[in-house]
């Protein structure tokens, strides 16, 4: 298989930058040109509040080949070049899994899977503008210009991901697709009448610790979904998602390094003050840093809410999408099996006789369960790195991932009370201890009290350390956002 080079070039002179020869498809171009002003209007209404006229040091992809990846410059967000970028096509690619395994990939939507495919794209697409909406007030309390820039970079890239999904809808799904594209701009995160599709995307992102937790835990669900869709037998979806993954990695970085810097500041402050007990919350909070038990509770919340995004562990929808060759498994190409799974099983944790037990289930039915497990393994990596840093600074405290059955509304564990450690308890016991599992109102009030803007070049809020390295080799006191 060889990589096709012809589509690497991006047409940046076009009103909508693209590498999909948009100019040659007049019907599509017209549809997108109609959608474009609606998108900009949505950005104006629901995008980052108060900073659209400021110059932000943003990364824009000018090509989808590795070398064209990153051009950095100060730009105003509404002038960001949102475009349609697909990863280079792989000649001779075949459907990697499911009952069509080995057949050439589809360049057009297979009629029998039309509605299933549309639903997958709509659900993925809906999360993109949702997170921009959730985060729109954060600029007002940015702990530094560096962090503000990272927030806005995440936001413009989520915007581009919406473009990527809208392109697929408009190009391949005719009138229905155009309608869905419009709906993407009409639903609103947290709105009672027309909420975003998935629950976690209707939660607020009220403070910066939430933002870092969200980008670490919840955007990681996005990464897992994109990885699975990148396997798709519908080639345009695969190519879109493959390119989106490179951007998604940046969001993981913002989350992982953000939490890391919060923890580092707390541990350093404890050391400076000679505090060794991480549970001496009062003394620790007096220093204007976030105590580690509160961080643990925030972690419990964001990770468990994200677990729900994977849907039911045993799911017929997910099974159908796998069998149809539309949505694969995480790193499908690296898994050593027949990729059809008719005779395979996968262990799914379930509640049996009052106990949490792994039961071997049909592997196709357990696609979601497996993706959730892959997610948990991936997410634990960063938790381990946070712990290494805490240990290095000599503080006796270890962050842990909550059990996958903890605090669930969807799936196998929605009817059972399980502690973060994985013990099944009575509902009364759970509720009596909830303040040690999940952030309390007073935790949130405290975090909120720290959210004061820090807009001076090179200055960082009291509760967070500067990063180890700046963006694009710039120093940490670089003017990442020009506020003047």
């Amino acid at each position: 298989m060889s990589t096709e080079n012809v589509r690497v070039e991006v047409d940046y002179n076009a009103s909508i930058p693209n590498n999909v020869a948009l100019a040659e498809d007049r019907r599509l171009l017209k549809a997108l040109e109609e959608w474009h002003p609606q998108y900009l209007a949505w950005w104006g209404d629901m995008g980052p509040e108060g900073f659209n006229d400021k110059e932000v040091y943003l990364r824009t992809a000018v090509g989808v080949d590795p070398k064209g990846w990153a051009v950095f410059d100060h730009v105003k967000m509404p002038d960001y070049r949102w475009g349609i970028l697909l990863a280079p096509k792989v000649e001779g690619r075949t459907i990697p899994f499911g009952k069509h395994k080995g057949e050439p990939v589809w360049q057009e939507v297979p009629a029998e899977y039309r509605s299933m495919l549309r639903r997958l794209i709509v659900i993925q697409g809906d999360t993109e503008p949702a997170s921009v909406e959730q985060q729109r007030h954060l600029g007002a309390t940015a702990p530094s210009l560096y962090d503000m820039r990272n927030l806005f970079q995440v936001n413009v890239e989520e915007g581009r991901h919406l473009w990527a999904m809208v392109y697929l809808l408009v190009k391949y799904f005719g009138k229905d697709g155009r309608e869905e594209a419009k709906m993407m701009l009409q639903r609103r995160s947290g709105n009672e009448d027309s909420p975003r599709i998935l629950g976690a995307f209707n939660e607020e992102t009220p403070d910066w610790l939430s933002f870092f937790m969200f980008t670490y835990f919840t955007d990681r669900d996005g990464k897992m979904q994109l990885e699975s869709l990148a396997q798709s037998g519908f080639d345009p979806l695969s190519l879109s998602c493959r390119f989106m993954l490179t951007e998604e990695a940046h969001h993981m970085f913002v989350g992982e390094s953000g939490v890391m810097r919060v923890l580092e500041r707390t541990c350093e402050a404890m050391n400076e003050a000679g505090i060794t007990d991480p549970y001496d919350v009062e003394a620790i909070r007096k220093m204007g840093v976030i105590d580690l038990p509160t961080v643990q509770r925030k972690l419990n919340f964001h990770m468990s809410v994200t677990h729900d995004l994977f849907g039911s562990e045993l799911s017929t929808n997910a099974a159908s999408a796998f069998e149809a060759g539309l949505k694969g498994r995480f790193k499908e190409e690296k898994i050593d099996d027949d990729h059809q799974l008719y005779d395979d099983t996968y262990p799914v944790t379930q509640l049996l006789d009052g106990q949490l037990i792994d039961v071997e289930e049909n592997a196709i039915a357990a696609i979601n369960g497996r993706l959730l497990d892959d997610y948990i393994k991936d997410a634990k990596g960063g938790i381990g790195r946070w712990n290494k840093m805490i240990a290095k600074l000599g503080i006796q405290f270890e962050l842990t991932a909550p059990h996958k059955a903890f605090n669930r509304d969807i799936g196998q564990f929605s009817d059972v009370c399980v502690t973060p450690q994985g013990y099944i308890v009575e509902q009364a016991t759970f509720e009596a201890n909830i303040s040690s599992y999940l952030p309390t109102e007073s935790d949130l009030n405290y975090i909120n009290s720290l959210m004061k803007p820090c807009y001076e070049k090179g200055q960082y809020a009291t509760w967070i350390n500067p990063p180890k390295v700046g963006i694009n080799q710039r120093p940490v006191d670089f003017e990442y956002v020009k506020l003047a």
Partner: protein
Amino acid sequence: MVFMRQHLIDPEVCIRCNTCEENCPIEGAIEHNDDNYVVNAALCEYCMNCIAPCPTGAINNWRNVRQPYSLEQQYLWDELPASIEWADTEGTTEALEEEANQILDVAHQGSGVVPAPATAARPQINLWSQGSPAKAIVAGNYRITEAGTESDVRHIILDFGSQSFPVLEGQSLGVIPPGVDDNGKPHAVRLYSISSPRDGERPNYNNLSLTVKRIAYGEHDETKKGLASNYMCDLQKGDEVEITGPFGSTFLMPNDAAAHIVMLCTGTGVAPFRAMTERRRRMGIVGSGKTMLFFGARSASELPYFGPLQKLSGELLDQELVYSRVGAGTKEYVQDRMLKRASDLAELLEDENSHFFVCGLKGMETGVENSFKQICLEHNMDWDKIRTTLLAEGRYHIETY
């Protein structure tokens, strides 16, 4: 043992997102386990495909090492080892050194990253940074092309007084022009090759020389002056100049007296070769190594160091001076003269003691490579294969700009 610039990933900054491995075109050059992502020094070809897509900057780390860190060592790291050869750097200085590194990366694009010659001395690099530059005093500034010609090339001598600035032949230094640009930012650093040998422009003095051409270029019907080159060429004796560096750890002279050194250059590209030639002149002829120079300029009067070159014996330096603008019909370039010495060059290409260095404008690379190819064709040799061997063994170096 070879001195190499090893590509490493900072495990403290890396988020294990797999983007680098995804973008790496060489199977196995980047790999990972549950702990770390690591670069295999034996496989990485420095194509830089992984650098821009990395969301964290963790990928952009380099260490100058004698012996590359193994994969096993890298897997055990919680953080990068301290850079042994690098001077202490703090805060913003790393980015500024990277600026110099990027200039060198571009200059070395023709060859890609190659190891230094096996017998090169161990270079010191990055002793002085933009945050704390060395302050050199101008000890002399002489025009070395004939007055009245278009090319104003200067031999500038800088004295470092009591500051340490050890250099090897082939290394460069950075000059920071004073003042700020139109955007109020400090001017970017400029790199110049050092044209004196390691023991100083004057033996055992703590000084060195640069070879700088005054640049002027046309823009919107007016002649603009190259900012840094004009600053340099206008320096007066006694002026103070801010210097960073030294830089460069691959384009270096072999110490072995039996090594043959073939130098191909145009214009001020002669600077490192003046340093190497001068080194060999001062050592005296002690080994069997030949020193050969192909040097192109418009005319003798515009050829830097024309006078001094005439004084060198043929035994010390086999020189081919080539002029592109002398009379009608005699236009000749370095690559043309190479063909006239085809049999000598073919012999040298086959000799494992030979080292080839190219320095000058980007434009000369293709011509030089074509001539090598043609010479090989005529002598039943495979240039592509020879080139690969030369690069792998650190015996072919290109520095063009």
